[in-house]
């Protein structure tokens, strides 16, 4: 069956530069801001010598802890948990290396940067507490956050004695996996252009959730949410880094209000590593107890991380395998002098899947069992807690189809068995599970006299393909070609329901959230249009009682008219309606699945592990646009593989400095590191989840990819690397 597939409707605008991202906006009288960040991780700003900077050409204002633009409130909602709650320039205290200590505003960007370089800051430095490694032993149980399941221990059964269950198992293994911090490193840095008029703020600021961004900014600035208008039609990558509001946007808005002029603040590439969030380092210990036949008897999963954002236990372990005894716990290391951690693509899922899918591989080896066979023996049919059935689960088919496509049967059972000249060749696999969901949301669909229809929602397109999926779904719902649909998104003034849909494109749920609401809204809009045709003055169908709509045409009373003609004849600017999607059916649990298969070649002399093949088979419900869906999966897989291959934030424990906070030293895979990914989608629409049957995929590829790579490296070499990334030095014999 041919799957719908369409080029991105925003592609031309993006490749020609016509798409305007936040920092592309230039407003008359605009002032440019440049951030100055601390060079110590803990201590106080004693003094700042601003004379040279003030005297430099074009400087308009310099904000410092002693002279800062006013903030009236704090971040609210989830941002209070997952973003930096201390307002920028709050006081002279320094809590991490790279903290904002000044904002220089000047007539040009060069003048701002030049003046910033002239500022001399004197610190009273204290030895920082910046080593996660050292902090691990003092980790504590996290305080519980109302409404948030993260960090809460999970026990099954409630009175489980996990140590006893492990001890009673025929085979037990215990392993610890370490993952360093990671930074979103999206192409578009955090940037904002802010302008006030009559007490209302308009801000062009790249965000995954325009409405949440408006809510958070309104809280910080002490104005009504309706008085903050966020405009963000194009976002150059978010990955969770643009889910919440960070200091650069706050400062742009506050400074613009103070100065009475538009203000632009663009975060420097190095500064992004510290003034915005990152994925915290984590350390996970798994203990598995199993019977000789592979059936799991006990799973203990204990995690330590910097903060709640990275909770692999909650996110991963209950969703993969059936076991009668489960104990999941998390500790955090509060008070570290490190930048604020936040969520990052598949938060907890990525790290958890790495550890779990590696330890399963280790157990398979211990048992002398094929890794897929071990997974099938522990196949989960319903949720761990509450035993809810899954709406539509075809993970077994993913394994089967994937093994076939990839040639899994050619895998050498014994590690190190397959060589090709100087290369040791290995295969590994891993499972990906990602909770699927959707929030009720509101979409407005409207017909216009020029023959087009608008479809609007306050979500965002962070490169995911939402523009295109909205056009395609609108086209389907209205029976029109997609080029007659005008999607609208990336604007806080567009409709949303005020459920968790306020956060826009997060949790891989945007497509699943928005598309059913488009169907609802389209129905309502068609009803409105039919009524208009039957009643409006000037309508050729006026008075007809059998008005019908199909494919852009209205018929009734023996006459026919296109909606464009109709609205032109009736002199109506638009006829439309809002529609809100139904609540989720909670009798079932929802998740997307994938099976990854990876082949690596490790040089027998120098240890470089090179990716040579990768197959992913995806069970994510209906695929609404095969082209952008494939892009999401390959991008996600590479995102996950990056953690295995090279990506790592390196924190100097003694200074709190990130020693590779730039894109030359913070290694992301380049094209030469990748292969042509083989992505295959199963076709099982999840109509219980929504009428469009689409589940989330944005993060799915990321989940499990690193484990597939690590398992392949082990199969190639016999070496088990449990600390990411897997660099050549770790594989030298």
């Amino acid at each position, binding site marked *: 069956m041919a799957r719908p597939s369409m080029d991105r409707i925003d592609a031309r605008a993006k490749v020609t530069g016509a798409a305007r991202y936040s920092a592309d906006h230039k407003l008359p009288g605009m002032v440019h801001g440049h951030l100055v960040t601390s*060079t110590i991780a803990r201590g106080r700003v004693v003094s700042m010598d601003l004379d040279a900077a003030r005297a430099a050409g074009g400087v308009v204002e310099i904000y410092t802890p002693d002279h800062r633009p006013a903030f009236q409130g704090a971040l609210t909602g989830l941002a209070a948990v997952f973003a930096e709650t201390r307002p920028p320039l709050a006081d002279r205290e320094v809590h991490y290396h790279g903290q904002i200590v000044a904002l220089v505003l000047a007539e040009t960007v060069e003048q701002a*940067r*030049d003046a910033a*370089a002239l500022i001399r800051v004197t610190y009273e430095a204290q030895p920082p507490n910046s080593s996660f490694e050292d902090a691990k032993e003092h980790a504590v149980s996290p305080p519980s956050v109302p409404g948030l399941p993260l960090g809460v221990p999970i026990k099954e059964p409630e009175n489980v004695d996990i140590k006893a269950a492990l001890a009673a198992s025929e085979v037990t293994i215990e392993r610890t996996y370490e993952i360093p911090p990671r930074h979103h490193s999206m192409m578009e840095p955090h940037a904002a252009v802010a302008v006030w008029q009559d007490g209302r703020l308009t801000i062009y600021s790249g965000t995954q959730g325009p409405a949440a961004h408006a809510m958070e900014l309104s809280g910080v600035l002490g104005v009504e949410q309706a008085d903050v208008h966020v405009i963000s039609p194009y976002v150059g990558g978010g990955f969770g880094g643009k889910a919440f509001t960070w200091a650069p946007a706050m400062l742009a808005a506050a400074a613009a209000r103070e100065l009475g002029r538009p203000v632009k603040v663009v975060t420097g590439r190095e500064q992004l590593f510290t003034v915005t969030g990152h994925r915290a380092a984590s350390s996970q210990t798994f203990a598995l107890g199993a019977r000789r036949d592979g059936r799991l008897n006990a799973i203990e999963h204990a995690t330590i991380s910097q903060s709640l954002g990275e909770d692999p236990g909650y996110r991963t372990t209950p969703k993969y395998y059936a076991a009668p005894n489960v104990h999941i716990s998390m500790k955090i290391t509060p008070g570290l002098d490190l930048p604020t951690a936040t969520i990052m693509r598949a938060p907890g899922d990525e790290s958890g899947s790495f550890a779990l899918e590696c330890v399963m591989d280790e157990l398979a080896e211990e048992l002398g069992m094929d890794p897929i066979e071990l997974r099938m023996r522990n196949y989960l049919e319903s949720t761990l807690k509450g035993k809810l059935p899954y709406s539509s689960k075809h993970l077994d088919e993913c394994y089967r189809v994937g093994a076939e496509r990839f040639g899994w049967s050619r895998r050498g059972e014994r590690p190190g068995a397959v060589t090709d000249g*100087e290369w040791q060749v290995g295969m590994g696999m891993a499972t990906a599970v990602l909770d699927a969901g959707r929030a009720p949301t509101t979409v407005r669909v409207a017909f216009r006299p020029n023959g087009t229809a608008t479809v609007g929602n306050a979500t965002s397109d962070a490169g995911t393909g939402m523009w295109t999926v909205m056009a395609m779904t609108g086209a389907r719902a209205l029976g029109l070609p997609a080029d007659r649909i005008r999607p609208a998104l990336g604007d806080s003034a567009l409709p949303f329901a005020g459920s968790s849909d306020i956060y826009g494109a997060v949790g891989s749920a945007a497509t699943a959230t928005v598309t059913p609401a488009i169907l609802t809204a389209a129905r309502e809009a068609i009803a409105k249009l039919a009524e208009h045709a039957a009643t409006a003055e000037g309508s050729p169908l006026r008075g007809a009682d059998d008005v019908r709509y199909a494919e852009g045409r209205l018929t009734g009373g023996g006459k026919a008219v296109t909606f464009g003609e109709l609205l032109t004849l009736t002199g109506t600017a638009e006829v439309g309606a809002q529609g809100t999607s139904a609540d989720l059916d909670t009798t079932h649990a929802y998740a997307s699945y994938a099976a990854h298969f990876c082949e690596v070649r490790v*040089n027998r*002399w*120098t*240890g*470089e592990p*090179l990716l040579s093949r990768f197959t992913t088979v995806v069970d994510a419900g209906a695929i609404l646009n095969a082209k952008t869906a494939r892009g999401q999966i390959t991008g996600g897989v590479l995102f996950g593989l990056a953690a295995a*291959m*090279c990506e790592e934030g*390196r924190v*100097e424990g*003694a*200074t709190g*400095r990130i*020693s*590779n906070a730039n894109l*030359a*030293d913070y*290694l992301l*895979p*380049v*094209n*030469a*590191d990748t292969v042509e990914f083989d992505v295959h989608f199963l076709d099982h629409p999840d109509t219980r989840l929504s009428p469009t049957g689409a589940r989330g995929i944005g993060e799915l590829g990321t989940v499990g990819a690193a484990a597939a790579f690590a398992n392949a490296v082990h199969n190639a070499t016999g070496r088990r690397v449990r600390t990411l*990334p897997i*660099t*050549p*030095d770790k594989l*030298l014999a």
Partner: protein
Amino acid sequence: MRPYTYAAARSVGEALERAGDGSAYLAGGTTLVDLMKLEVVSPAHVVDITAVPLRGIRRGPRGLFIGAMERMADVAGHHLVAEPYPVVAEALRQSASPQIRNMATIGGNLLQRTRCGYFRDPATPCNRREPGSGCPAVDGHNRSHAILGTSDACVATHPSDLAVALTALDARLSLRGAGGERTLRLADFYRLPGGTPHLENELRPGELITGVTVPALPWARRSTYVKVRDRRSYEFALCSAAVAVHVKGGVIREARVAAGGVGTRPWRLPAVEEALRGRPMRTETFEAAVAHAADGARPLARNAFKPALLRRTIVRALVHLAG
């Protein structure tokens, strides 16, 4: 970036005339502009030499001459380079990215500065940048740093791949200064850091590199460059080896071996060359010959793997040449 004055020269004479105290030549700019933006270097005066005719790739009596202003990409693809000296072409092709290789010049490449993160961050001390300020790399993040030729004052590697290949081939630099012309072996050009790591090489103030001469070495057709790094492109070497062998009747008559990513300058390994000479061209020979390659190395806390990696990188290069 600090303010500076700029002038473009059209001839060597003009360039030399315009250069002075605190000036810098601008070639491809891929190192210079980068470091100026970071304020690691802040020349008062920049002399653009992109229009100075220091071009040409030609065979001469002393070997192959390459003009200092030739671009890395052009040199890598030139038949007078690629056929007789594969090691040079391979080293260039594994350097940086296509975009950078299209901009960057041979002269600039040999004068590029270390990639040590402390050198590149003016907020940290660095003896190379600010003599006497200290070296955080000794106890800091030193995974990529040198193990050979280091001192307590500096453990930074020389990053150029090309320089490693040219060191193996014993290339000579042509230099022009106010005092006239001179040539210098590349091997004598780079200094060890010792107590004065800020004195990186023998270039005199205002002096220009005009070109490089690679001596004729017919058997260098059998040469290769192996570069080990954390990703497959656009990354500096953890360790690299430039190797050429002259094999007759299955026996190694002559060998050239130099290494990158491990030394404070491109590191020639005469002891390994010696140990290869007169031995059969096979893996056992290679493994025996590299046994002492890292003798005298001073590994740091995070690069203890480098001695082993050095030995293995050389073996891998030799195995390629044997294959």
